[in-house]
């Protein structure tokens, strides 16, 4: 079929054609970028922490009337309270493991510092999160040890952080090891944490930092395990529940800790929570954003499809006589349907070319202002095909109706 009659007919509807082309182009540009954004958000919200999340529980609590000084006696008292809590938690039937743990991936409470290869901290510098805890922390989190060993019981220190007592041994995450020792020989080497030396005795595969904020996003898997129980008026613990007993452990732990010492604050909202609850809470905004974008995309595509249906319907109505003439001259119904399909393909084709261009521009703008990555061409390709298919789908109804125009219309006066 020759395109000539289609094009010359469209010339008579310049304004309408321009508008529908523009609409298709804008729709494609917005939908492509929005879907890319949705995918980014979902990917961000589902990346693994490195811990075995199912059955992992965090307890944050503060004692009332805990010793407030930082003298040795107060520290020892606080440490005894912490060890008593841990012993109680480990004795619970549904608890597989329990550990002192200042931080938890995603949870937000973060200690961080600067790692370097010399005490002057010159040259290579890596920011990392410090996870303070005891020898059970690594197994309780379920983080995979890929080299070296766990902390030994006699390596565990305890102090109220005053900045000068630092453990001589640490376990680092693989990204930290790779950044400081690109040759892959990190194990056994000495690193300087904020200027103070420590030997790497173990490497864990992956451990996300406790923060998901933008300021921490460039070092989001740089973590260091420190064999230190931090003593303060607040202490927090990590628990590993036996399979399927997560809910039970959360109830039992509260009861057991209050039985040990009722003078403590452990709010319902964040005192005891599972990592899956923490994850849901921390990524709520991302899920909400993804949902909103999805809804807008669907409505946008709906509006554009309805616009195509509406405009084509008008054109069909306007050309009833011409359609009748063509039918009278021997065109089959299928020819009429094909005519409108080709016409739509032509319009949508121009629309998607323009739209792809707009999408790329919009992406460039988003990259400049919202730190979005570059839009992969696959998204554009899928978007283009989807919009072309949408056009064909939308034009099907009016085209079918056009094909039902009887040839006899050609002979009528009006």
């Amino acid at each position, binding site marked *: 079929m020759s395109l000539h009659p289609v094009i010359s007919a469209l010339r008579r509807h310049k304004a309408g054609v321009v*508008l529908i082309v523009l609409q298709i182009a804008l729709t494609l*540009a917005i939908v492509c970028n929005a879907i890319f954004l949705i995918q980014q958000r979902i990917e961000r919200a589902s990346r693994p922490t490195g811990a075995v999340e199912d059955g992992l529980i965090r307890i944050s609590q503060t004692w*009332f009337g805990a010793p*407030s000084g930082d003298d040795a006696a107060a520290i020892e008292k606080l440490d005894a309270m912490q060890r008593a809590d841990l012993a109680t938690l480990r004795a619970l039937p549904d608890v597989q493991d329990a550990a002192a743990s200042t931080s938890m991936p995603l949870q937000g409470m973060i200690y961080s510092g600067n790692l370097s290869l010399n005490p002057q901290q010159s040259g290579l510098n890596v920011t990392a999160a410090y996870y303070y805890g005891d020898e059970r922390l690594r197994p309780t989190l379920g983080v995979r040890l890929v080299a070296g060993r766990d902390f030994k019981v006699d390596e565990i220190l305890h102090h109220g952080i*005053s900045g000068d007592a630092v453990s001589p041994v640490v376990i680092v995450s693989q990204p930290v090891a790779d950044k400081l020792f690109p040759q892959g020989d990190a194990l056994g080497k000495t690193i300087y944490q904020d200027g103070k030396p420590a030997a790497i005795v173990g490497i864990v595969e992956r451990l996300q930092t406790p923060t998901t904020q933008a300021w921490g996003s460039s070092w989001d898997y740089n973590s260091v395990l420190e064999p230190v129980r931090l003593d303060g008026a607040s202490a927090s613990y990590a628990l590993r529940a036996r399979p399927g007993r997560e809910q039970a452990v959360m109830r039992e732990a509260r009861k057991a800790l209050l039985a040990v010492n009722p003078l403590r604050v452990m709010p319902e909202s964040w005192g005891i929570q599972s990592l899956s609850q923490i994850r849901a809470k921390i990524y709520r905004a991302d899920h909400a954003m993804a949902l909103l974008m999805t809804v807008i995309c669907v409505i946008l595509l709906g509006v554009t499809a309805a616009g195509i249906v*509406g405009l084509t319907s008008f054109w069909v109505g306007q050309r009833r006589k011409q359609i009748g003439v063509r039918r009278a001259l021997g065109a089959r119904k299928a020819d009429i349907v094909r005519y409108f399909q080709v016409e739509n393909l032509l319009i949508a084709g121009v629309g998607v070319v323009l739209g792809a261009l707009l999408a790329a521009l919009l992406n460039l703008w988003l990259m400049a202002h919202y730190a979005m990555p570059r839009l992969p061409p696959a998204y554009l390709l899928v978007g283009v095909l989807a919009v072309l298919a949408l056009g064909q789908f939308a034009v099907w109804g009016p085209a079918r109706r056009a094909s039902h125009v009887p040839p006899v219309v050609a002979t009528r006066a009006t």
Partner: protein
Amino acid sequence: MFFPSPFGEGAQRAGEGTFEAQRCALAEPSPPAPPPMGEGSNIQEDGMFGYYLDLALRSLKRNKSLTALMVLAIALGIGASMTMLTVLHVLSGDPLPGKSALIYYPQIDPQDLKGMQPNKEPPEQVTLIDGLNLLHAGRADHQALMSGGSVPLDPQKTDLDPFYVEARYTTPDFFPMFDAPFLFGHAWTEADGEAKVREVVIARSLNDKLFGGADSVGRIVRMAGVDWRIVGVLDKWRPNPHFYDLNTGSYDYGEQVFLPLQTMLDLRLDRNGSTDCWGNGGGGVGNILPSDDCVWLQFWVQLDTPTKAAAYKEFLVHYSQEQKALGRFQRAPNVRLRNVMQWLDYQMVVPGDVRLQTGLAFGFLLVCLVNTVGLMLAKFMRRAAELGVRRALGASKRALFAQLLIESGVVGLVGGVGGLLLALFGLWLVRQRPSDYAALAHLDLSMLFITFALAVGATLLAGLLPAWRACQVAPALQLKSN
């Protein structure tokens, strides 16, 4: 019919309907067909308006599904964009209307030479020693040094469990500088603060909770294991965003207790917020304070005139030079003095997501408008015959143009009402979301007005091109061709 189209039968009937009307018009040029009018007409302007409105409604009714689509598209576009615009408007609001231009946030750079880059911003908070130095220098009209935290409160009542309250540790100029309104009592004095008194100003919500709203000045409240005497109760006061300390979350955060900073330093109460250290600085945990190589406090000043602000900036430079001469500072003076709105802007307080969603919503509105322009164009052009008849019967181009614009205005008005309802629904949805600004999302009067103006304005704009195109019909040609 195989394909269930909302336009199917309607469109065909509409076509015939137009021809029908046209035939009537030729046979008897009286209502319901258009009567003679235009330049020669003696119908008054307002009468014309009523008549055009009538014509518009007839035309819209003739093509119900199409009209519904146009109205729906406008309503969706307006609803989405107004929802997001309202959220943006609320979030970028001025926390201290009328005063924010006089309140400044001084920044100085006490860091060591490591990691220094030219033009790099100084730290976003101050160290304790610099904060106290600037406070005691007293060069501004008001100045306050502060930090945030939370303290356990023991109500010592049987019906209430111990709970945490959000606390602001500050020097007393905080209250007059930020126009915090007192319901009862007053702040502690500067001298009391220096003397580390255990006095507290509590928020109205806490006063309601603990004392049932009674004047509690002079009463004792036990926090962090210590007795505090209440000296003042603040009335409802919650600046949004929480500009003076953005570490707490920017929106819908309010402290329940205000404690003297010096007393907090003395008692080593727990802090929340961010602590940035350099060199061998220790961040301090629990009851250990951060070292002097750490910034962890906010320092705010009030400067009543631009001259004073300029002088204060000079002072900050001198202070930095002095500290460098003393060997404390290592870098060349690097100071900033932003007022509240500049500070919020610099901190990019409005969430990027909200800006992005607002942009998306307006993109969506644009597509909806283009869609409406296209549909109106088709609809108006389709009526070329009817318009030709009206032209032939003496209606001026202007009259036709007005008629068609009224038709698009009606669509805009109805779409606007729909958009308003959708925006109210959208804001309700926003309020159900778990973000810290959720509770703030309400439509105010100005946004209500903007919604309508935007809806009608946008649709009239959308109607301009189709209406102009449609009135270009030559009167006679249309009569002849059919």
